[in-house]
């Protein structure tokens, strides 16, 4: 399934982390059994949770080959998923609790004015090639991310209040991050920034070759990271093999150094159906990003694997209309259509006529949630639960249309036709991505829903790239069904969608001035929450944004699919989360149960 990502620069990699809510630290003095020569002092992170068994390998399928292993430029999902298992960040968001936890930084302090963040690194950590990590690596990392010539995909996120953040080193373990303005996301900012090895990358950086570095075919000795696994082998078109990082900085409660697995193998399996077949035949151990149809096929015949429904994820699907100001380019016919689309009552009427329950039932086989706003029930911290959930009402829709000056004429065969205030029939087309069976189905349901209002809708399935081109570049479309999936639960990950200047403000992207008062208000609220510290205040502001969106319906929110995964019973510590990477977020804790336990099942 292809998804339009919420914004291109939002390419977060994710590093596996804690299983439970609270992290505990190993007392620095305690001596841990180590596979390698012991360092003077290693401040390792101890994870609670089931104690596993070392050894074994896990095979997982990826939709395509990762384009790069370079966290600076990775933008595609497979690259992000692989990098997530190979790299680590300073502060990490626990995918299960959706809260931050210490990672490479063992602690952090935010100054009273919210402008200074002091982070303390763990002592004695080493990269996967054995080279020690210190504050200079972090300084180097952020210098590279902020360098305009590197074109790091996430660079925009480090520009706060129009100025890039600055990083200072206090001592080899302590760093100070200075912001120009208070930053609402606080320490969540640090999630997803892979700390890079200066000893390997400084030279190529000075030569300006950083962008071409670390392709998947890089020799393993030219690569180093801080994640649970390190590069072992890459076979183009077939697989990527990662091996256990012996220097990884986490242990389980018994003091065994993580990860448990010796190898992690990513197979490149291009189609969703082929992935299902591989999983069924036992070639792969874990399957994620399952569609509801395939999920029920697998559920029906589960033998040595278990299927799990982790609940609604962050993906929201919606219908939106072309509200761009096209000026002279617009044809008379299209100007007339836009007159309807711009009328909020028209959009509200469509929203009232949509049978969201049917979408959840028929498209997601009940494994999803109906939506009336952009934040899904899966995003527990940010969803505004006071947004009304009106049930489907054709009467209400008709009343709204009548109020907006529309009328109906009935043909001889009893078919109703909705006429606009000028007496022209209401007809428009909806684009969907032809490769996405779910959204094509939604469009077919919508078509039938709207026919009952007398609207004649044509569904046009288009190849995904040309669809995006029409929506964002040529702007030649009436309406379109798309889905967005944020990588983080925080509202900032959707900044590009809600700001009227954003490139993913789909119904009217990249405006120089907000074209409606409510868009202006959303702009103001989003900017305000960006600079407001503290969850409570930000939540209030974002709640208001959700209310405005639900009222004005620039997007008619439809439904959100559940995160559906499957794993072999022999794998321990599987705790699927609704945030990416749904299953691999705690990859260092995954282990293979021993033979006796397998037989017992």
């Amino acid at each position, binding site marked *: 399934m292809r998804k339009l990502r919420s914004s291109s620069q939002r390419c977060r990699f994710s590093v596996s982390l804690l299983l439970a809510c609270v992290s505990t630290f190993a007392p620095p003095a305690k001596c841990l059994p180590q596979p390698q020569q012991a360092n003077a002092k290693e401040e390792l992170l101890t994870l609670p949770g089931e104690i596993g068994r070392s050894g074994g390998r896990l095979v997982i399928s990826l939709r395509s080959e990762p384009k790069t292993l370079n966290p600076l430029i990775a933008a595609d999902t497979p690259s992000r998923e692989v990098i997530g298992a190979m790299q680590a960040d300073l502060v990490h968001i626990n995918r299960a609790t959706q809260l931050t936890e210490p990672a490479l930084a063992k602690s952090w302090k935010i100054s009273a004015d919210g402008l200074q963040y002091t982070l303390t690194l763990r002592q004695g950590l080493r990269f996967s090639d054995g080279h020690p990590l210190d504050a200079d690596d972090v300084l180097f990392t952020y210098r590279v991310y902020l360098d305009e010539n590197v074109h790091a995909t996430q660079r925009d996120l480090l520009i706060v209040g129009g100025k890039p953040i600055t990083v200072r080193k206090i001592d080899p373990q302590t760093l100070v991050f200075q912001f120009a303005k208070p930053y609402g996301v606080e320490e969540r900012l640090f999630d997803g920034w892979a700390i890079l090895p200066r000893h390997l990358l400084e030279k190529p950086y000075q030569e300006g070759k950083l962008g071409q570095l670390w392709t998947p075919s890089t020799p393993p000795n030219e690569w180093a990271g801080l994640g649970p696994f390190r590069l072992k082998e890459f076979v183009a078109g077939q697989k990527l093999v990662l091996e256990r990082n012996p220097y990884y900085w986490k242990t389980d409660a018994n003091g065994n150094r993580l990860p448990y697995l010796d190898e992690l193998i990513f197979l490149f399996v291009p189609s969703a159906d082929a992935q*299902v*077949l591989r999983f069924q035949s036992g070639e792969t151990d874990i399957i994620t990003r399952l569609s509801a*149809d395939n999920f*029920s096929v697998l559920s029906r015949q589960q033998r040595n694997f278990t299927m799990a429904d982790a609940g609604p994820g962050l993906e929201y699907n919606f219908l939106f209309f072309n509200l761009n100001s096209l000026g002279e380019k617009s044809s008379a016919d299209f100007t007339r259509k836009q007159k309807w689309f711009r009328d909020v009552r028209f959009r509200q009427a469509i929203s009232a006529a949509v*049978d969201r329950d049917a979408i959840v*039932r*028929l498209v997601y*086989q009940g494994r999803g949630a109906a939506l009336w706003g952009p934040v899904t029930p899966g995003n527990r911290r940010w969803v505004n639960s006071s947004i009304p959930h009106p049930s489907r009402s054709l009467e209400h829709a008709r009343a709204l249309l009548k109020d907006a000056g529309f009328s109906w004429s009935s043909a001889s065969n009893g078919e109703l036709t909705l006429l606009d205030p000028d007496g022209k029939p209401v007809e428009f087309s909806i684009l969907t991505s032809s490769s996405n069976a779910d959204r094509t189905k939604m469009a077919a349901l919508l078509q039938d829903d709207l026919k009952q209002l007398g609207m004649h809708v*044509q569904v046009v399935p288009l190849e995904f790239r040309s669809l995006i081109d029409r929506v964002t570049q040529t702007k030649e479309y009436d309406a379109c069904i798309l889905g967005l999936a944020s990588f983080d639960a925080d509202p900032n990950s959707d900044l590009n969608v809600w700001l009227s200047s954003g490139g993913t403000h789909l119904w009217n992207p990249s405006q120089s001035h907000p074209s409606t008062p409510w868009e202006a208000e959303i702009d103001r609220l989003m900017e305000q929450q960006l600079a407001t510290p503290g969850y409570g205040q930000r939540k209030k502001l974002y709640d208001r944004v959700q209310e405005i969106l639900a009222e004005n319906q620039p997007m008619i929110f439809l439904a959100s699919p559940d995160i559906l995964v499957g794993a072999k019973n022999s794998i321990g510590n599987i705790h699927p989360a609704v945030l990416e990477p749904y299953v691999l977020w705690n990859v260092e804790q995954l282990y293979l149960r021993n033979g006796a336990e397998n037989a017992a099942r």
Partner: protein
Amino acid sequence: MSQRLKLTKWLVVLVVLHCIVVGAGFFAPYNPVEQDREHPYLPPMRVHLMDAQNHFHLRPFFHPLRLRTGSFDQYEEDTTSAVPLRFFTRGAAYRLLGLVPSRLHLFGSTDARIYLLGSDAYGRDQLSRILYGGQVSLLAGLLGAGVTLFLGALIGMAAGYFGGWRDELLMRVAELFLALPWLYLLFALRAFLPLAVSPIQAFLLVVAVIGMVGWARPARLVRGVVLSVKERDFVRAARGFGGSDIYLLRRHILPETASVLLTQAVILVPQFVLAEMTLSFLGLGVPEPMSSWGNLLASLQQYSVLVSYWWMYLPALAIVPFFLGYLGLASALQQRTSPYKIEEQSGWNPS
């Protein structure tokens, strides 16, 4: 005699089949686009004559289906209620042949919906969709064959009759068309056309696209016939009496090509039905919610449908009798016009 019998037999089969499809409104119990959202992917229902106590009922009845407890997509018969099947009932409005408005259906039920061939992802009746889909597919095949034969006959006659550089040019173009992979040609042609088209436009586009592609083979056949016919004595005589080119072509040459054209037509129709199905299967044919045999099969592109709902294969079976009919007719026609005709009729068998 047996030749004629065979021909009549196949003709009758085809006429009956086509009447069923033409009268889809009457034979189908429901409107093919009507969604029953409570009943997606319902398996085909069984019609009973015997009840649980083994009592015989003159009026056939069926049990509505309900979800098996604890299941999302497995249905079982609700034997507590028996719904009688009614014949010649009034139901959804339709127009026979697109003209005569009617509400009369061959069968149906007043109390519950009956799905003889199951339902699809939106709870639409599969039987109704197959019957209505046949209208689209067969009409596309017939019209496409018509267009092709017209073009083929025209070009073939022009090339054969006028000869010279015209013949060269036309036949080289025909060879080019024969050499082209026609499926990709169809894709390319369809891709040039606008995206959002109404169902009628889409249908006409499909017909035009199919019709334009296949003319080369009939054109070559017709050319061959014309080449030999135009040297025959009666044509020369007619020319000697001052017949114009057009007259000669129309009066003397065209009738001689009839048997070739007829056989070609019968072979081309199923071929073009298949072409329409291919286009629709790949989403380039008539748009949803209209059905054609091709887009009914399109859902089988998903693995989950392929392994879960066997009744979604049924549209593929629907084409079998039609193809048998057309191919049987073609072979009967061929036998009638083939050179062995005389020998067989005279009872002389060379082998």
